[in-house]
Every structure is written in structure tokens, then in C-alpha cells.
């Protein structure tokens, strides 16, 4: 298994406060990785650094050997490294289907000049709709395809986040709390989607979640963070038993 994503000693400061204080780890192709840590330990900040929303002050991020540390967000996404948002960020007034369609990387009708000439893009639009509709079916969202995103429930929005990342042709997906505030049933559904996507199309996942017990059974490998630093890593059991992790969650 080859290395897909490598984070090398990343520092991200807000003023003097180091939200990421020298984080290093790497992900192998086709793995499901879990990133745990208490609130405010810098998990989302790390994802922002990887996906290009922030540029880390120090350190490097490599995706498939290419240095993407200070690359624009959209260029990173085009490489196939796509993230979702902790607070679901759909296009509120667009429908579920349209939300999916916007994410498709190559749609002829999204060219400013071609958009004037419908025959040039109508086929690619039809293909896009078919693809989106299949993905919605896989994720169990097809019944809400025609609802504007601002009327979807929290759970549906979380699924839509994943759907949008898939629609964009991602090969590695960073899921920022995909099951935050989700009921246990949907939680396990979402994780089984993750498993299925990994098994069937080999997508690599980095999943952020701070409730270890929920996600542990699905992860191949767990990273634990505390106060901007990676404290330990290993299998779920190893991390579970590590006293530094216990201390981080339960206090001294």
C-alpha cells in the first residue's frame, strides 16, 4: 500500500496560540483512519491546513508525493483530496440534486462561453444527473432530491456532505465529524457507507470524531490529538488504553 497523504511537522498558529503544534503522520492508500481528540485540540484546523484553507506556518503537506502545502484549495481538490465540513455547508437555496451537480468536476455547461449554446452541454448535464441520482440512491438521499438544502435535516446534510465529495471524484476524503450530533442508527449507516466506499472504490478516509467508542470498530488506525499535538497512534484498542488519551478526555 502506497502512501497517499503525508503530514510533516505542521504548525499552525493563531496569534501566539499553536492550534497545530508540530503534527506529523501519514495515510496509506485505502485505509480508514480516525482522528480523535477533545474539543478544541486542533483537528479541524489540521484539516483546514491539509485542504488549503489555511497555510501552515511551518511544515509540509504532501499528497501522492507532491508538495501541496501552499496550494490553492481548488487545486488540492482537483488532485482528488477533498474534505467535508464539520458544520455542513451546502448551497442552501439549491436542491439536493443541484448541490450534487455543482460538485461534478467536468461539466461542459459550466464553461462561460459554452453555456450560451445549450446543445454543447445538454448531454453532459444528463450524464451528470444520472450519476448524481445513482449516488443519492447509494447514500439513501434520493427521496429528498428535489428539496432545497435549507429544508434538509442535520443527518441528511451530513450525508449530502459525503455525496458532494464523492461527486467531485475524490480519491481521498477528509470527513470532519461526519456523525457529529447524529443518532446512533444513522451513525452506523454513515460508517457503513464509508466502509463500502473504501471496499468498492478504494477511497482513503481520514475521519474526525471525538467519540472514540462510536467510530473505533470501523477504523484501521487511530490518531489521537491533544492540545495541538499528536499524542499517540495505533489500533483502536491501543489508543483506547493509552493513558495520555484517557487523561486528555477525562482530565487529570
Amino acid at each position, binding site marked *: 500500500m502506497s502512501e497517499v497523504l503525508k503530514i510533516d511537522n505542521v504548525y499552525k498558529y493563531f496569534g501566539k496560540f499553536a492550534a497545530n503544534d508540530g503534527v506529523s503522520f501519514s495515510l496509506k492508500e485505502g485505509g480508514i483512519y480516525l482522528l480523535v481528540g477533545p474539543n478544541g485540540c486542533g483537528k479541524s484546523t489540521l484539516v483546514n491546513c491539509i485542504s488549503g484553507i489555511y497555510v501552515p506556518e511551518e511544515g509540509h503537506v504532501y499528497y501522492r508525493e507532491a508538495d501541496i502545502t501552499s496550494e490553492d484549495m481548488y487545486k488540492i481538490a482537483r488532485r482528488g483530496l477533498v474534505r467535508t465540513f464539520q458544520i455542513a455547508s451546502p448551497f*442552501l437555496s439549491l436542491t439536493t440534486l443541484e448541490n450534487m451537480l455543482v460538485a461534478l468536476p467536468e461539466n461542459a455547461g459550466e464553461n462561460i462561453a459554452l453555456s450560451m449554446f445549450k446543445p454543447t452541454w445538454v448531454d453532459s448535464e444528463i450524464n451528470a444527473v444520472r450519476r448524481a441520482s445513482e449516488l443519492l440512491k447509494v447514500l439513501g438521499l434520493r427521496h429528498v432530491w428535489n428539496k432545497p438544502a435549507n429544508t434538509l435535516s442535520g443527518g441528511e446534510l451530513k450525508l449530502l456532505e459525503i455525496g458532494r465529495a464523492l461527486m467531485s471524484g475524490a480519491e481521498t476524503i477528509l470527513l470532519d465529524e461526519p456523525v457529529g450530533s447524529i443518532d446512533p442508527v444513522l451513525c452506523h449507516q454513515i460508517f457503513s457507507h464509508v466502509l463500502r466506499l473504501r471496499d468498492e472504490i478504494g477511497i482513503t478516509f481520514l475521519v474526525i470524531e471525538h467519540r472514540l467508542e462510536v467510530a473505533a470498530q470501523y477504523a484501521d488506525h487511530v490518531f489521537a490529538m491533544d492540545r495541538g499535538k499528536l499524542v499517540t497512534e495505533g489500533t483502536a484498542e491501543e489508543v483506547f488504553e493509552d493513558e495520555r488519551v484517557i487523561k486528555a478526555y477525562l482530565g487529570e
Partner: protein
Amino acid sequence: MIQEIALGLLTSSVAVEGTSRLIVDIAMYFGLFVIVAMALNFQYGNAGIPNMGCAVQVIIGGFTVSAITTRLIFTLAGNAGVEILPWTSDYDWVYNSPVNVNIVNSWLSGKPLFCISMLLFTIAINLVLGAVIGWLISLPAIRLRATYLMIVLITMADASQIFGRNITWISGGTLGLFIPDIFKWYSGDRTIVMAIITLLIGLISFFIFRTMLNSPYGRLMRAIRENEVTVGSVGKNVTGIRRNILMFASGITAISGALIGFYFSYVVEANYQRALWTYWPWLMLILGGPGNNAGTFLGCALVTALRRIIIVNKWFLQEVFFFPIAYFEQILLGVLLIAVIIFRPNGIIPEKLLYIPGVNYRKLVDEEVVVDWRSASKSRGASSGISGIFRTLGGKKEEAGD
């Protein structure tokens, strides 16, 4: 009334009067403003860029007519042996302009083809220079959001007027500049031809904008308006798309600035004030319904008609009103803007959720398994720019070859 206009057009000698005159006038202004309002709907209503600098996009059209088309016509006339007064120095440029234009006009009167090609040439230059202005606007538009961007763009529009006022060779400074009448070949009432051509151009640009907004590109614009970070997170270059939008809209908007220059046969920076070319189009858009094409059209028609009727009938209105109504339409602009924002913020016809017309989404969604969702779409990359066209067309060819 209609017969009168038709008659006027046919007999080519009767000047329209009274109500018919008003209708021609409204048609002319509607043609001009539907361009600006639709471009604004494109930029603000859909892409969410609060462009308070419409006036700068319009003024570049006026400047094109005065600084480029007029010079070109003078040069060509001079080469053709027409004896015109010296015009190359700044002083001559301004003070000889009425005489020169008069001389050139009689030369132009026998050359309809030449005149039409001058009009087309101006439009082409407008598209180019307008795009340059759009690119300039995109520089702050990429960094700044809402309020600050609005302030920068208002300032840009005012600055462009100051350029016009102080740089004589552009549009004759404060005195303005007469420009050749490219409708001299028409012996009847030229305003009718002007109005028809303007209306035509206005309607064409309306349909172009409408087609673009009813396409995946329009959807992409609305997505950027809703959440630009998300658009970026799936690999779309928001900065580039914004720049394209501004360049395209500016290019089209500039045409209306050129047309009004031709209409008046005169260009002066004072004709391109932001009240007229920014705030009125904003009222049209907000009144009609931002994001809605039909709404923009309706808003533009209503506001233009109202404004022109007031302006044309001020003499009569003054007798009815007890207060001086010199600035009545400006007062109305302010009152209407405030009233619309308070009572009907979404406009007369609010934006409605719309799928692209002509594609049956429900049928496509209900269809049984057609594509394998597992096959990721591997071809990543921009399709927003000019290069995207070649990629798309090239891609088509490859498929055909297979």
C-alpha cells in the same frame, strides 16, 4: 400611435411627436437599461457580487465612442480627402469638435455601410475594453466582501468620471465632445432607428444572459453566491469564475454606454453619473426580483417607463404638485428603493428554485440504474475558461473517434 411610428419610419420624413415620441424615448432607455440591469442580475442576483460600479462599466462604452470611434472616423475621413479642421491637439480636439463633426456628418450621410461597420466596430471594442474594466473590478472583488467591495466600486465609478473630466483627449473634459452621427444616412427621424437598434441589442443581451443563467454555469454562479468555500472545496476555481463573470458582464454593459453616446451624438462624463447608471439599475433589479430574469425585465420596464414619463412631463407635473419637482425622479428613486427593501425585499417576482428548462430532471432521477456510481469521473480540471471549450470540443472528437 403605432401606425404613427410605422408611418414615421416608412415615410422617413415625419418626426414623431407627443405620445409616440415618449414611446420611442422609453423604448430607447429600456433598451439601454435592460442591458445594465440584466448584467447586474448576472453579477449580483446570481453570482452574488454586489457590483456598485455599474457606472464604470457603462462609462467605458462612452469613452470608447469618443476616444476611439470618433478618432477612427476622423482619420478615415481625412484619408478620404474630407477637409476637416485640425483635431490632433487637445485644444483642437475639443474646440473644433462641433465643426468637424458637422463636416464629417455630411460625408457620412452617403455611407450607410460604413456607418454600420463603425457601430459594429464600437461594439467589438466595447466588449474588449469592458472586459478589461471587468478584470480591474475583479481585483478588489476577489479579496473584499459586500460592503467594502461596494465602497471600492462606487469610488471606481466616481474616479472614472474624474478621469473623463480631466483628461481632455478622452471625452473632451468638462465641455464634452461631439461625435459623428452614424445614423446620418437615414433621412427620417434618426431617434427611431436608434431606438429600434438599441432595443434589439437590449433584447439580444437579455436572451444571452437568460440562456447563460439557465445553464449549469448559472447554477454554478448561484452556488458561489450561497457558499463560495464549498465551491472551492470541490475543485472549482472561484476566483477565476468571478473574474470571468465580471469581465463578461462588463463587456456587455459597456455597449449601453456607447449606444447612449451615439444617441446624443455627444459624450460627456457628466452623462455617466452613478445615480443614473448604478442606482437606477439597482432599483430595477431589486424591485423586479434579484436572481429572476423575468423580474429583472419587468422591473426594468416599470422603472424606465416611470422615470421617463416623469422627466418628459415635468412641465405638466409641476402644475399639479405644490413643491418644486426638479428632482422628483431622484426623490422617487430613494423612496422606492427604501420601500422595496422594507416591504418586498425579494422583489415583485421573487427568485424561484428552477432546474434548467428543457432537461427533465424528474424523469432522469426516477430512471432505473443507468450509470455505475463507482466509476469516478477521472478527468479533473477547469472547464470554466476558454481552454475548457477546446477541451470539451476536443473530448467530443475523441469520443467520436472511439
